[in-house]
């Protein structure tokens, strides 16, 4: 019995490692950082994310498979690495505004952020369903914790518990799906699944059901109706910075994995699942938007809005093909930017200890904090899909993909939904600019990092809105990689 240790190709791990090491370093470093300098945790996190971004950019165009295809390094993965790193970066920045100096366990907080980023990266680059599952669990466990991070607050506890119970429940289905696919094909490695199916064998119900169960798992993560119900509660109860992270990151990760699995491994199932997702997309968009209409809590409203946006992305998924997938990628970036921007603005607008949770809290801010409010308005317009913003371009691309694939009905429902959504996004602006505050609040110190996050997101939102071609090009390259 001899154990030959394999040659390990480290390259696929290269962009992930800085994040993993960063997470560990923060965990350890926190012990040594003096009490007044806890933001060193954040800075360390930023550094590791920056490194990851750097590596990802350098590796653009390289294609590698690690042992047993567990990880795949390709443009698709790198695209998402960049997205996750960016999301994480912005999250860290806005967390710096959200957590004050006295918040305990900052080291744990930032390391968990990094670990969940790691989980996302694994989901996006996993070449094996097991890796995707493990990435999902890494992400989820870290997020459960982060949701309950304000452990003294009942809402935070409740969010964490709900998230955990439902998340575990859903991952049970997901895992079952993996098991059935394993049974049907004899492997969990995506390439082999694809090869197995490419032989022209007809796929029995086992595989179909397995795929369906995977869909449930992804549906849960992207908060698609009817697997969405945890979303508003968790997003409301979780700390605001975490909500931002979840909204922007989780969804992207889930869609990344989804595309890898369904477009790359199970393309032959397209006919079955596109019909299913058609329905999911419609339900998701419609419910998200309709319920968001009647929300008064900004976080909750954005939570429902995130559900609706998941629906739009699902439209692109249904549309499929190169355009559809490109649309997914493009939209996810736009979506991440505008949501993070909005949350960063919420955080940057808040005073210490008093979050602006309710719509009414925003009264009169438009002219008291003009720059931030203007950015907030920009994000809202972008979320509503009004040009010239990223949100508009995203929708344009998604709906054009839908039309290209002759899903006219879906596109019509989609745009009508986006009209409905305009109402509640604009309502926040109405309150900021068009109503008078109940009482003057004392001016509060600004959090420079959060403001920086707002600024970056705003620039990104406008940049993509005005000149989307570059990002589209990147997304298309990524998709081309996936098709191989």
């Amino acid at each position: 019995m001899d154990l030959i240790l394999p040659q390990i190709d480290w390259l696929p791990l290269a962009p992930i490692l800085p994040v993993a090491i960063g997470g560990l370093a923060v965990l350890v470093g926190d012990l040594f950082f003096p009490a007044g300098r806890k933001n060193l945790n954040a800075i360390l996190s930023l550094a590791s994310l920056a490194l990851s971004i750097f590596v990802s950019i350098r590796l653009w165009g390289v294609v590698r498979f690690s042992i047993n295809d567990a990880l795949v390094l390709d443009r698709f993965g790198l695209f998402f690495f960049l997205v996750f790193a960016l999301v994480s970066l912005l999250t860290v920045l806005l967390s710096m505004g959200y957590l004050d100096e006295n918040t305990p366990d900052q080291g744990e907080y930032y390391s968990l952020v990094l670990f969940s980023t790691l989980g996302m990266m694994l989901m996006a680059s996993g070449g094996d369903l097991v890796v995707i599952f493990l990435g999902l669990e890494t992400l989820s466990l870290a997020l459960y914790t982060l949701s309950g991070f304000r452990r003294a607050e009942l809402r935070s506890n409740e969010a964490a518990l709900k998230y955990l119970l439902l998340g575990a429940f859903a991952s049970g289905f997901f895992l079952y799906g993996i098991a059935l696919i394993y049974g049907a094909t004899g492997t969990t490695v995506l390439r082999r699944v694809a090869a197995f199916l490419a032989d022209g064998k007809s796929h029995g119900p086992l595989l179909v059901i397995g795929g369906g169960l995977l869909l449930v798992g992804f549906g849960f993560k992207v908060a698609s109706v009817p697997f969405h119900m945890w979303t508003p509660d968790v997003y409301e109860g979780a700390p605001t910075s975490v909500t931002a992270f979840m909204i922007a990151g989780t969804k992207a990760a889930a869609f990344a994995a989804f595309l890898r699995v369904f477009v790359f491994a199970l393309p032959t199932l397209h006919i079955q699942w596109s019909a299913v997702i058609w329905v999911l997309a419609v339900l998701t968009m419609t419910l998200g938007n309709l319920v968001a209409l009647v929300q008064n809590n900004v976080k909750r409203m954005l939570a429902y809005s995130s559900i609706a946006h998941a629906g739009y992305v699902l439209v692109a998924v249904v549309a499929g093909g190169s355009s559809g997938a490109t649309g997914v990628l493009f939209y996810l970036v736009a979506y991440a930017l505008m949501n993070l921007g909005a949350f960063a603005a919420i955080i940057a607008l808040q005073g210490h200890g008093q979050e602006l949770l309710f719509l009414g809290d925003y009264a009169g801010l438009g002219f008291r904090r003009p720059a931030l409010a203007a950015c907030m308005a920009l994000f809202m317009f972008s979320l509503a899909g009004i040009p010239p913003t990223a949100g508009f371009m995203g929708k344009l691309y998604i709906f054009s993909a839908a039309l290209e694939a002759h899903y006219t009905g879906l596109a019509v429902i989609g745009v009508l939904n986006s009209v409905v959504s305009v109402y509640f996004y604009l309502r926040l602006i109405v309150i900021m600019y068009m109503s008078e505050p109940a009482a003057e609040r004392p001016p509060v110190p600004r959090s420079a990092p959060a403001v920086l996050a707002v600024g970056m997101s705003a620039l990104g939102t406008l940049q993509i809105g005005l000149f989307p071609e570059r990002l589209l090009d990147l997304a298309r390259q990524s998709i081309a990689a996936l098709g191989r």
Partner: protein
Amino acid sequence: MIWLIPLSPLVGSLVVGLMGRRMRRSWVAVVACGAASLALLFSLGCFARLISLPAEGRLFRQSLGPWIASGNFSVAFGVLFDPLSAIMALVVSGVGLLIHVYSIGYMAEDRDYHRFFSLLNLFLAEMLVLVLADNYLLLFVGWEGVGLCSYLLIGFWFERPAAASAGTKAFLVNRIGDAAVVVGLIWMIQLFGSLDYQIVFREAPAALSHGSVAATILSLLLFAGATGKSAQLPLYVWLPDAMEGPTPVSALIHAATMVTAGVYLVARSAPLFQLAPVSLEIVAWIGGLTALYAASIALVQTDIKRVIAYSTISQLGYMFLGLGVGAYAAGIFHLMTHAFFKALLFLAAGSVIHALHGEQDLRNMGALRKSLGVTAASFLVGALANAGIVPFAGFWSKDEILFATYASGHRLLWGLGALTAAGTGFYMFRLYFLAFEGKSRLDPRLSSHLHEAPWSMRLPLVLLALGSATVGFFGVPPDSGPFHRFLGPVFPAAAHEGGSAAPASGIVLALAALVMALVGIVIAFRYYLQEPGRPETMAAQYPTLYRALLYKYWVDELYEKAVVRPISSAAGALSTSFDANMIDGSVNGIASLVGRAGGVLRRLQTGHVPTYVLSILVGVVVLLGYLVFVG
């Protein structure tokens, strides 16, 4: 040179209007009257050039350049000076100048002196554009322009509610006719590709066959405009109310000039009307009926200006009667004579009102001849002219119309005309007797210091009285007087079909009409001078008739009930019920439905984990079910 005719009052209007506030009153008067006299001078100049041309070629045109051109359609700022335009321009600028002069005195006390003169000048300009235009569209510019001036001048004393609503009424009633004209014009564009008179009249016989429906409708559309502007049935209702304006305005606009624009339009369009005998018939009948109808109302009115106003309507009816029976020249002749004597009557009435500080009710007058000699004399001349007593102007022109009517075979219409003549004699002299003769019923405070108007008012009276007495001779002998020889070539040859009756019967007919008028005068004399109680007795004897006349056959009330109020209430109902509730309601309804759907769906989000689990389960089961059993 032709363009200078309307331009000079236009410039005057602008100068007075924009700078009048800072000008002295005398300068305002000088500029305004100067502009008017320039217009008259230029008209005379053009006229002189015109008569120097041979009779058949008496026409010249001038264009200031294109106005609207779109596709194959184009219209220019072109003017035309032919005998018809010449007569109109002369009448307008001549009578206009006199009334300008008259206004110097009449309006002397008014605080909006410059506004008045500015508008008066503007009116003159627009009226001259109307009569000088060489195409229908430019005519329409003047047509609407004079309407605007009329509107603003009726409402000159806009603080009086009656004046304000009279102005609005005038504009709106006219607008109905104008819309018809617009339709007529756009139709002409389609038919002839142009609105230029010469082209239209050249193309018309080819494009529209004689007596065709199209020709009838087209000419009737134009005539509809004319009934508005010239206050014929059924659109006459604005004119009596228009008396709310200052009296010089009534004289100029609502008697001498503007109201005759309709007559001018029909006369100008004679070649079109010739193609549509039915239309001509209608014109004649409308004219004849209006003449009698208005005269009948005038019999009992007590407001001095209103009587004259109804008289105007009635006389305009004569003109249309003339046009309708093809006696275009006679119609225009009557237009000219009427301009003189009706302006005279109004100015004289104005002089009375001026002297009585605004009193207009005949029942409060009487015996004014003693204090207002010149006024009374000139009024008498006007009344005689209006009543058609030989040899005053009205006799010649009216007689000619009646003769043509009879000669063209319209016996019944002739009867109407003759009856009207009797009525005319009656109401004119009723007016004269009530105002100037008999016993004074004046407010004693007024009667103490009655005095004649200033020279600026008296001079026009005298001049107009002279005119009223004499212009009729231009039309002597009937049908071949200098007037007709001058105007004749303008109208189509067929227009003279009525001239075939024997001259002998002409004299008989003229005598008959004259007798009718005299009878009317005599009755007026008896009723109002000899037996002052008689009218009341008569009124008591025929209460229905009397009230019908007094209340003008309740036509205003009818229009109010049948047209104005339904439209108003329809508008109100549309606005509140339909627009706000139905249309906007459904818009808002959709919105609130969406919102309510959100509220309902929201309740699904109970906060309970089991519910959420159930939801996931539903998803799983349906999804797997689809995949297993369907997909």
